[in-house]
């Protein structure tokens, strides 16, 4: 069983960071909604609040890890330019997609949208984590701050959903392959 270095990084970017970040949204949304419940300061004790803050801080780390690994590790492989005369475009995903009328929109629409909109998520979640850290004990009393943080969390969720969905589809039509091969187990 083996995997290429590029495949492995794509898995880290999409599944290791991105999918985990996406999964974490339910907890963040529930936590922020719960803060607004009547008597929430009594419901949430110090330990609960600390856990939610570390949870949000973890989401911030995952969000930045996702966009930076995407933009600076995986994306350069995606947009690599094939040498003149290359016929097999399998190692040049962007050019592979653009080479056919039936796939070019996956780049022109899908990748163009994904590569930009994804950056809304870490900006929004960094703000949400900061607001929670700053107003942890009295966020329930600041309804407007809590609502704004919740709306930015939902916006980050949408941005991540768009980026993640197109990432999955793009990897179906033009997977990023190549690089050094890592042998995970020896076949019999």
């Amino acid at each position, binding site marked *: 069983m083996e995997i290429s270095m590029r495949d492995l990084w794509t898995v880290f970017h999409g599944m290791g960071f991105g999918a985990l970040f996406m999964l974490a949204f339910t907890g963040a949304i529930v936590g922020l909604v719960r803060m607004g419940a009547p008597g929430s300061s009594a419901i949430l004790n110090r330990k609960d*609040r*600390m856990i939610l*803050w570390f949870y949000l801080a973890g989401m911030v780390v995952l969000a930045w890890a996702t*966009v930076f690994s995407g*933009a*600076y590790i995986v*994306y*350069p492989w995606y*947009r690599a330019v094939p040498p003149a005369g290359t016929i097999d475009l399998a190692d040049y995903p962007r050019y592979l997609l653009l080479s056919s009328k039936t796939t070019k929109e996956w780049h*022109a*629409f899908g990748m*163009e*949208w994904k*590569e*930009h*909109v994804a*950056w*809304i998520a870490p*900006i*929004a979640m*960094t*703000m949400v984590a*900061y*607001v929670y*850290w*700053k*107003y*942890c*004990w*009295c966020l329930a*009393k*600041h309804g*407007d*701050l809590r*609502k*704004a*943080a919740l*709306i*930015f969390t939902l*916006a980050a969720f*949408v*941005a991540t959903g768009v980026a993640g969905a197109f990432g999955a589809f793009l990897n179906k039509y033009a997977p990023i392959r190549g690089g050094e091969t890592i042998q995970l187990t020896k076949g019999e």
Partner: protein
Amino acid sequence: MANANESSMDKDLQNGAGAAAILAAGIGCAALGVFTLLADAFNGIKSFLNFYNPTGPLSGVTTLAIVVWLAAWFVLAKKWNGRDVAMQRVSVVAFVLLAVGFALTFPPLLDLLQGK
């Protein structure tokens, strides 16, 4: 969580610091959209934003958006820290800016704005 104790709760009640962070996030998202549009519309700007060649103009678009976001946060926090501000108005402006960020990263709208 140095400031997260109930005894300092009263001191933290002013919404200025939170409002600054929220509005700055909106400004950062809008900046992302504006830089995306500029890079798409003008070849000169596209070349200028090519900060790191393997990543292309995306490197400049996102780096500058982050710089604008952090700068806005720094300035607004200096101005509003320890104060109460009209949070509803700040929220509305932040949401509009967030929507601008979403809209200007949507390729069909970028094409429409450029008459493509």
